[in-house]
């Protein structure tokens, strides 16, 4: 934490496959000890970016620096310090979990006795100590993923990069897995880069989030900042449903609501009225409806989570009109 230099530094990173631009002029800095979430739909260029950071794919232009090394020209130095969990991780299925990890330790030139201690410690940490002698072919998906995490940690990395680590694990497994990542990052001052298209999972663990669409990072920051920049004009949304038949358009109540200072807009979506407000005036609105003699079936104050942020960015990116970040 003492040195301020970012451990991951991407400058104008670009990757083109023929005419397709997979990653477009990406700029990103990640600090030591940070848990950064790379969020984006499938095919947004997340994996390509990660592969470029590891020097496994050559960028068309730009610079990818990891721990002060250029990932393209000195990948070995980078790979000594970075643990990478690919999205569809594979193990040698006819070997035991222990053997798989020992093999990785050997490739990292860790002396045998030290490797043995470290591997058994890691297996214990990810809760696989009882399955250590079982063949990986008999492991469940969640177990493989946990073995993958242990595998990544064998080399004692400074940074771990996890590509879609929660894919195909059941919800409780996901929660445990994310907790484990969080705990590891806090305990060992690990920098974690997590890519996913699952918003809620990212929300649970990440300090900062970058939203990645069509090869560009269109927004980055922590979640409150993201929602603030995005929904500055209308941070609150109240959703009301009135007993039918009823329509707000043309109803005298519409004018009443619109004259309120805090209300910035009214929309009717699927028989529900969406009232956008600059401040939280839910009680006032409820009261107004009741006083007008209308039967409220449903009233809800919506809060903007990552879902809405994500949705909003995708809407915008589809219309090609984003100018944020």
């Amino acid at each position, binding site marked *: 934490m003492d040195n301020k230099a970012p451990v991951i530094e991407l400058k104008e990173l670009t990757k083109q496959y023929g005419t397709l631009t997979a990653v477009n002029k990406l700029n990103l800095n990640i600090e030591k000890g940070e848990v950064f979430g790379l969020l984006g739909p499938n095919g947004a260029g997340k994996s390509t970016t990660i592969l470029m950071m590891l020097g*496994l794919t050559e960028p068309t232009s730009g610079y990818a620096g990891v721990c002060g090394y250029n990932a393209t020209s000195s990948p*070995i130095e980078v*790979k000594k310090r970075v643990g*990478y969990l*690919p999205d569809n*991780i*594979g193990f*040698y*299925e006819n070997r035991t979990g222990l053997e798989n990890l020992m093999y990785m330790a050997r*490739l990292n030139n860790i002396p045998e006795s030290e490797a043995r201690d470290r591997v058994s410690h890691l297996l214990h940490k990810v809760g696989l100590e009882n399955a250590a002698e079982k063949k990986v072919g008999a492991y469940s998906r969640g177990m493989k993923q946990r073995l993958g995490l242990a595998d990544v940690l064998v080399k004692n990395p400074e940074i771990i990069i996890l590509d879609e680590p929660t894919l195909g694990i059941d919800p409780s497994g996901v929660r445990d897995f994310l907790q484990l990542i969080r705990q590891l990052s806090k305990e060992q001052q690990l920098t974690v880069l997590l890519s996913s298209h699952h918003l809620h999972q990212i929300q649970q663990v990440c300090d900062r989030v970058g939203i990645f669409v069509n090869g560009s990072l269109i927004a980055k920051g922590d979640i409150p900042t993201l929602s603030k920049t995005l929904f500055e004009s209308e941070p609150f949304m109240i959703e009301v449903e009135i007993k039918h038949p009823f329509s707000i358009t043309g109803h005298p109540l519409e004018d009443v609501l619109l004259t309120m200072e805090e209300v910035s807009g009214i929309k009717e979506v699927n028989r529900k009225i969406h009232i956008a407000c600059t401040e939280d005036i839910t009680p006032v609105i409820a009261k107004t409806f009741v006083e007008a003699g209308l039967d409220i079936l449903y009233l809800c104050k919506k809060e903007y989570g990552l879902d809405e942020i994500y949705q909003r960015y995708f809407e915008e990116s589809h219309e090609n009109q984003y100018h944020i970040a």
Partner: protein
Amino acid sequence: MKINTTLPSHYLAYVKSIPLLQKRTGKKRTTQKQSLHPFWAIVQKEVSDHIGSWRFIILLAMITLICFGSLYIAVNNLPEALANAKDPNRDFVFLKLLSASDGTLPPFHILLGFLGPLLGIGMGFDAVNSEQNSGTLVRLMAQPIHRDYFINAKFTGALMVIGTLFMALSFLITGLGILVTGQMPMPEEFLRIIGFIILCIIYVAFWLNLSILFSVKFKRAATSALTAIAVWLFFTIFYQILVGMAAKALVSPGLSRTGYRVQKLLVTLLDIAPNRLFTDATTTILVPSVRSLGPLSIQQMQGAIPSTLSLGDSLMVVWPQLTGLIAATVACFAFSYYLFMRKEIRS
């Protein structure tokens, strides 16, 4: 002078003061034993994978079967072959064991020319693509090792297994020969057998490299296996037929200078097929009386006494075949190396 005498002791004290070095020098023997170079770690894993796999066990069983089948026939046929006074090779008992046959089963080296490719293909056809498909390749490449370690280790590992296999088989045959005949192999025979083993290894290495090449090129293991087998069948069956057809169409029955040239070209074409290179080379090595692999004119044959060649002369005869096989092996390996280094490794 003063500096020269004082500096080493200073330096020594300095070295001793570094705890890390102290530990290292103190534990030198144990650490050396403990840490294996990452490249050899991959080779070690490859070798143990091969030995433990069903595929290798089946191939091994097949090779052992043809080995002992041909050995049985050779042993039965041995007294007769050795008694034949007209045969200039009758002194080479152990070479006879490897090359003699009564016609029911082809001799060992011919059978090996036919089945050796299968061994090479079997060991290499899924070397790269299976690891890529199962996702272990990406995991491996994310470790601090050079990229070519992987493909080099694949080749080295398989080659070590093949080498050990052929060494063991040939020496087993020699040992059995000692038991059966009660004779000891002559030094020349021994050297010829070593030459034969080297030829076998190079020949199987060629097919191994070819199948590794296909395993880099094709994503599916089945495709690469089929392609390699297709190449093998082409050279063992169809190549001769094709050249034969071309010969019939091109060569006119009468004797002419161009006709001779075309025929010579066709013979050369036949000779450069890898299995032909192997059979020619092994025949020359195992049958010392073979003195030429091409057609000889009457003038050349005139005055020749049917006798054996020395090992050096046999090697001279076989040199083009040997270099041809090595060249084909190296070319295949270089091409697969090139392809692998440029390959997109994600699955």
